[in-house]
């Protein structure tokens, strides 16, 4: 496999989704050079996704590698009608991280980190520049949620908080958290489809 030229980091996040869609097409056809370019232009976004959920560096590196192997295998499944290429890739990475953090462990189901608090760099997508219409719509709908409920959804999404972790964070029973999540998610869908 050949490696592509190093892509300057500054261009990474800004890599146009159109370019990524073309790269994914070439990767689906088995183009190793396109895969290398795809990796170089998306690695930091995908690492940002997994590292915020897994927090342990070795686990994050492992999840990142598994995610890209899967992206190589599944590139042909990407459907531009259903989302952006970067969103599709980031979802694959996020699922790898979630599978790891929610793995049924033979030793302990309670092995979730205790006292798991959001780090200082908690993501605030409301401040993020809307890169796509879909993100703009989602941000608008998130903005319509109560502040606590919005934070709960974002902590779950970005930090991989479980219901338990959210219950600790908000000092509420897990049943209440479940109700929050249910209402918030249904409200989000209604808003997105309106």
């Amino acid at each position: 496999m050949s490696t592509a030229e190093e892509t300057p980091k500054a261009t990474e996040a800004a890599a146009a989704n159109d370019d990524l869609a073309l790269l994914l097409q070439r990767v689906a056809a088995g183009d190793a050079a396109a895969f290398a370019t795809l990796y170089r232009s998306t690695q930091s976004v995908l690492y940002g996704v997994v590292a915020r959920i897994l927090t342990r560096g070795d686990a994050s590196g492992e999840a990142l590698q598994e995610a890209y192997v899967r992206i190589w295998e599944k590139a042909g499944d990407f459907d531009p009608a259903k989302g952006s290429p970067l969103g599709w890739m980031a979802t694959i990475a996020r699922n790898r991280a979630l599978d790891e953090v929610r793995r049924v462990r033979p030793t302990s189901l309670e092995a979730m980190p205790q006292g798991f608090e959001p780090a200082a760099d908690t993501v605030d997508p409301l401040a993020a520049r809307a890169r796509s219409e879909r993100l703009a719509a989602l941000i608008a709908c998130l903005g319509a949620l109560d502040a606590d409920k919005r934070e709960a959804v974002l902590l779950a999404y970005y930090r991989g908080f479980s219901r338990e972790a959210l219950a600790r964070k908000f000092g509420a029973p897990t049943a209440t958290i479940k109700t929050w999540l249910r209402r918030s998610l249904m409200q989000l869908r209604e808003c997105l489809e309106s």
Partner: protein
Amino acid sequence: MTLSPDDDFAAAEFALGTLEPGERAALAARRRREPELDAAIRAWEARLSPLAEATPPIPPPADFLPAIEARIRAAAASPASNDVAALQKRLSRWRAAAVGAAGLAAALAIGFVAREATRVAQPKEFVAILQKSADSPAFVASINLAKGELSVRPVAAPPQAGRSYELWIIEPTLGAPRSLGIIDAAAVTRGPRLAAFDRAVVEDATYAVTVEPEGGSPDGKPSGPPVFVGKLVPVEP
């Protein structure tokens, strides 16, 4: 949409990531044989995916590209024909087991936890989610095949006053269900109880839990229908 509101919410929570480990494993197994549920999860993932895209980048601590390329090459180097043959063999064994247990499944309207058919490496660690309905896991059984070890962890099994839960292994070649012993509704039960069985039997078997008189079935046979049932899913290659 014919998905029930609870399943729809479970799909949403799967995409959001807030399901507990047992629930997540159970739903991951269900989506492989329930296309509507799978579609609902994908739709929720797509709805939320702009957030992932907006994640502030963090440069990885190392260049993982060579390692990723090596993994891809290793996967490509394993002869595809062998993989297909191995998959077909596993699939036919799974079908045989499913047919054998069909009556049981129908009686309980149970969905089986299908094995992840895409893994062709020999997994060592398996779990079975033992459940009554697909979204209510009661026990999680973990099996280490290399060591022949079994541990059963209660998730939400209601304690039975004066009665005991007993675990059974059911597989066509074994004939009648074979007891794996009493399991505890309140604590983890461990024991090297699988060493006596073939690997293929352990992998393909259906695991079922019955409620028995305190101390277990008096005659070594289940005295009633299973209350929880499940099949193994590999968790580690």
